[in-house]
């Protein structure tokens, strides 16, 4: 029994860490910029296919791909910000939603054209290996993905809290007028923030691909997952996203240990519905608050 509980906790934490990076970009972009980026999960999917492509064509291990994805997706995010977001961010929020929704559909469709709807898995040396710690057995892939997630979470937190640019980014989320009045270049910092959000989505895609099968059309499930975590945790703080992602990871592993898998979704979505109705403000209300 103790072993089972310890196993659930360990695996739940590892899963939660990976979920945390899957949700972090969504949470930060929403919290700092007030943008509900529904295309977020499409970038997660692209990250998974980047890992697959690098592995198949260049024999690059997903661990390396995780770090390769960061600069690539940062640039992609900054470009998307400049080309699309700047055109809609001052408009009514629904316009931005529709634009990002269109982008998501576009990426998903291009993905199915390029890679078909087949489900892929990434298989490397450690994919089916386990680490045994006393009576505990932990699969290597989630362990590695979890460690990578910790590195990314710490790096993002360090950037946002310990550098002046990071603090300025948080500041502009908290009071845009005041940030503008201090000469903070909100446009440029927004591009950086958006780039970081997409970078973490891409890297999360790599980490998720180490654990889960993936296909272009299943990306939307990660959007639902990420929203769940964001709504559970409240907005924009790295810590709160981390805590709620860990909760989701733990609930999921605990529920899967004792219940059929379908119930996991049921439990999590009942939790989501409950929280949304208790908060009574929905996503728009969440999006107005800032980090």
């Amino acid at each position, binding site marked *: 029994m103790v072993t089972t509980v310890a196993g659930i906790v360990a695996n739940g934490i590892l899963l939660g860490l990976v979920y945390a990076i899957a949700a972090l970009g969504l949470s930060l972009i929403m919290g700092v910029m007030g943008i509900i980026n529904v295309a977020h999960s499409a970038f997660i999917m692209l990250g998974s296919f980047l890992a697959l492509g690098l592995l198949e064509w260049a024999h690059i291990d997903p661990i390396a791909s995780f770090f390769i994805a960061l600069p690539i997706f940062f640039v992609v995010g900054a470009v998307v910000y400049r080309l699309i977001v700047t055109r809609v961010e001052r408009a009514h929020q629904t316009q931005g939603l529709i634009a990002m929704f269109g982008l998501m559909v576009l990426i998903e469709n291009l993905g199915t054209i390029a890679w078909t709807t087949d489900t892929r898995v990434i298989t490397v040396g450690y994919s089916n290996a386990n680490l045994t710690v006393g009576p505990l057995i932990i699969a290597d892939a989630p362990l590695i993905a979890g460690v990578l997630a910790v590195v990314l979470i710490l790096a993002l937190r360090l950037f946002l809290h310990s550098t*002046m640019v990071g*603090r300025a980014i948080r500041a502009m989320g*908290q*009071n845009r007028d005041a940030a*503008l*009045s201090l*000469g903070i*270049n909100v446009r440029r910092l927004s591009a950086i923030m958006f780039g970081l959000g997409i970078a973490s989505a891409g890297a999360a895609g790599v980490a998720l691909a180490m654990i889960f099968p993936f296909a272009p059309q299943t990306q939307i499930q990660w959007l639902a997952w990420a929203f769940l975590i964001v709504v559970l945790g409240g907005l924009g*703080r790295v810590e709160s996203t981390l805590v709620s992602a860990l909760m989701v990871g733990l609930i999921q592993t605990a529920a899967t240990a004792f219940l059929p898998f379908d119930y996991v979704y049921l439990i999590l979505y009942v939790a989501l519905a409950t929280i949304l109705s208790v908060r009574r403000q929905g996503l728009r209300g969440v999006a107005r608050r800032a980090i």
Partner: protein
Amino acid sequence: MIRRMDAVKLDVQKLVAGYIPGHPILHGVNLKIAPGQITVVLGPNGAGKSTALRVLAGFLAAESGSVRLDGDEIVDLPTYRHIESGIALLPQGHSVFPDLTVAENIELGGWILRGDRRRLHQAVDDVFTRYPHLRDLRNKSAGSLSGGQQRTVEIARLLVSNPRVLLIDEPSVGLSPVIASQVYRELTALKAEGRTILLVDQDIRAAIRIADYIYVLNSGKNEIEGDRAAFEGDLGALVRGWLGV
């Protein structure tokens, strides 16, 4: 009313500006801000007072018109150039960054100095010397402070860039009378240091009390103007009646 002035610090002429192109909020506003004085801008809600300050601070583009600082045109310069040339804005409402600490808030007041860390630290240190009680609060999150303390943080943050022209938007809103009068005293002290102040206020009485010259805007246009004496007499009653205060 013709106004004699030896020098104009900030000269705003025929300013047209707004948020949607072709739909201006300001329809040709004129302001002459005398150096070392407190100039007050009054007007009903939605008159365009804050809009005018945003243009003067450099982060809202003007459609047309001119803003001259010591004779130099600055209307099209970016915000950081405005700050470099000594203009700083205290925006309306609570404007501390609530989740940042007091020290982090104040440090961001020196954002444009960030390339020169030594100068930035010196400037921040000077501000802490000016407001020593903030030093004790430096590691508290700004959002956890009282309203008066937050206002002090905002003013301290404003002073890091050592501005010569202060644009202050409704500094006493939401403060207790005691704290509010401290804020007005602080503004008077800043004037005594030779700084130029453009004050937008809803508290007409308090603003007129420290004003050297007063403008009233309505619907994005100049309505009346005059010195304090004029407003303390009949004009004051007129404006108060018209604003419903």
